[in-house]
């Protein structure tokens, strides 16, 4: 099988940074199509273990609640396309636990007032690799996207997160926001973040933020002053990062499966964060 370019950044940048695309030998993608009808609401949980393509269209005033769990330790490629009509909303929650994953999410906010709200959490260890390419393409007037990514990296894991907010000409009054926070817990990790904003419309508001690395010193000092050792502080912070994503999932089975995959004890103290 020939190598294919995957996860192509909508605009290339310095070749030396190695983020423009991923090369993979790709097999067949199994295709899932979801159509959310006008005024309809659909909730779906997907466990993605091998190459999967999901294509979703949400008609006017429709609502999608999609949860995707990546807990396979095998090589995996996933594509997700979402198209949103007038006042349609898409809520996406993704959790990546380990593995060797290439994932692409392209959301087209075509409709007036369409909304895309996504929360992504990942935990990587050992030689895990993860390459995410997320594009929110705003062409609808007053469309809104909100992207929050929380990650924890350990071992010699490698991650690339490319997040693009693309304001097309005509997306008057559109608002896009994106934030990635990564905690790094081993000096062998590699973490690449590419928060892109493309803008061809005047009347928009775009915000991007990223923090990578250690936990804030003041935070550590405060916790230490209450008697908590530093490694424990990191452990707690890592857990908190993922918990904030997992709490957005309504499906109890999915929650349990994620907790298990993360090696968390399922039970009372999960909610303490």
């Amino acid at each position: 099988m020939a190598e294919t370019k995957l996860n192509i950044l909508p605009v290339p940048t310095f070749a030396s940074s190695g983020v423009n695309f991923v090369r993979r030998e790709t097999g067949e993608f199994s295709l899932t199509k979801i159509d959310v009808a006008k005024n309809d609401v659909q909730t779906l949980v997907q466990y993605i273990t091998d190459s999967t393509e999901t294509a979703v269209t949400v008609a006017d005033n429709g609502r999608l609640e999609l949860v995707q769990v990546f807990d396979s330790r095998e090589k995996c490629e996933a594509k997700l396309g979402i198209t949103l009509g007038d006042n349609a909303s898409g809520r996406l929650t993704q959790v990546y636990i380990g593995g060797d994953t290439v994932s692409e999410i392209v959301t087209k906010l075509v409709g007036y007032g369409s909304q895309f709200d996504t929360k992504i959490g990942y935990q990587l260890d050992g030689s895990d690799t993860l390459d995410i390419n997320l594009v929110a393409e705003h062409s609808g007037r007053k469309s809104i996207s909100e992207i929050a990514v929380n990650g924890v990296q350990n071992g010699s894991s490698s991650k690339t997160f490319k997040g693009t907010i693309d304001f097309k000409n005509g997306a008057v009054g559109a608002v896009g926001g994106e934030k990635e926070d990564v905690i790094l817990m081993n000096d062998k990790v590699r973490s690449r973040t590419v928060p892109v904003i493309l803008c061809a419309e005047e009347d928009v508001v775009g915000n991007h933020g990223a923090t990578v690395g250690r936990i804030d010193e003041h935070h550590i000092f405060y916790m230490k002053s209450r008697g908590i050792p530093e490694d424990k502080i990191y452990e707690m912070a890592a857990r908190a990062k993922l918990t904030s994503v997992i709490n957005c999932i309504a499906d109890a089975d999915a929650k349990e499966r994620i907790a298990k995959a993360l090696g968390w004890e399922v039970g009372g103290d999960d909610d303490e964060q």
Partner: protein
Amino acid sequence: MSNKTQVGDIDRSLYDFRYDEDESDFLDSGITPEIIAEISKEKNDPDWMREFRLKSLGIYNRTPMVEWGASIEGLDIDNIVTYIRPKSRMNTDWDSVPEDIKNTFEKLGIPQAERESLAGVGAQYDSELVYHNVREEAAQSGVVYTDLESAMHDPKYADIIKSHFMKLVPPTDHKFAALHGAVWSGGSFVYVPKGVKLDIPLQSYFRLNAKGAGQFEHTLIILEENSSLHFIEGCSAPKYYEAGLHAGCVELYVGKGASLRYSTIENWSKNMYNLNTKRALVEEGGKIEWVSGSFGSHVSYLYPMSILNGRGASAEFTGITFAGEGQDLDTGAKIVHNAPETSSYMNTKSISKSGGKSTFRSLVVIGENAVGAKSSVNCESLMLDRQSRSDTIPVIDVRTDKCDVGHEAKIGRISDASIFYLMSRGLSEEDARAMIVRGFADNVSKELPLEYAVEMNNLIKLEMHGSVG
């Protein structure tokens, strides 16, 4: 009210004038080994430099065009006269500078700037230095400020130049670095000895004048331990009708505990391809500060790079880019943290107007040994109309855990509420916009020496077609 005072309104022709190039002689347009040999002969290059140029040409021919960034399709390298010899040789005093060259400089305000006790003027006319004057003050403290070509022949500096020239930006870096290595001409050499702190800024003005002329000046600055310097590079060019190319190269070596501030305002004419490479290597405890304003050119690729190579080294980058009609300005910065406890701070603003395109592109690398490194990037973009475009493409690459990296980007427009507020106090809409844009650019202008800040504000006013006191 038509009689409002247009304070500091500058005459556009200031940047569009040019004089006949009567006495200058041209070389053939294309670049062949023969041309390179001719340049070497002309410059009386030492052997190593002659070889270096030919080797660079080979690299140039082998290196593919860059495949990302702004379009440079309009650039036809074979039609660019790469080298134009000015009619006068080195000058150390103003009186012997030819009259029409003098007029050009007069219009650009060089003599005035000098009067204001600036340390030295190395002005490049066409491709060669025509006027060079190092103030005694600088020389007395042992600071060497001269043109690179003659320094290469001075036994005192020959070795240090040979060991530093294009070592930081090797010809293999990219196609235009290779071109530069082959055809470079003119430029400055500054050497600041150990412990010397020069309080007055050194400045140079680069200009292109002849039609189709390329400019490949090389700036080499070496700061020894615990020394400090402020170097100002100002560029403006008259307008011509064929594509112009600027592929200069700046190499800055900042020694232990030394500190260098490198300020630039670029206002190339609107048909210029500005493919400039700037790089600094900073040793332990050293500091590089870049202040960069990009206003001119048709297409720019400009990403000054700082390599923080010793413990505690730091870099600061403050930049503004203003892309107007017909401009595609791709600017930003690169910072490589290659030692523990290094820190970097980047603060940029970009403005797009009248169909102009501005792209902010950056790279922050935290290497494996950059334990305890800190980096903070903040970029803001302002869209002034819906014909324009503004892209932000930062890359953060972290390879160790014990670091603290932050990035913030914002894009938006001038709010209607702000405009109404200013208009209710008597400003026209145009002036209100100009004022807000000037405020937006304030972070850069306050980092510049006063006369440059005034020049930058004038440029903004000019671009905004309005003026407020």
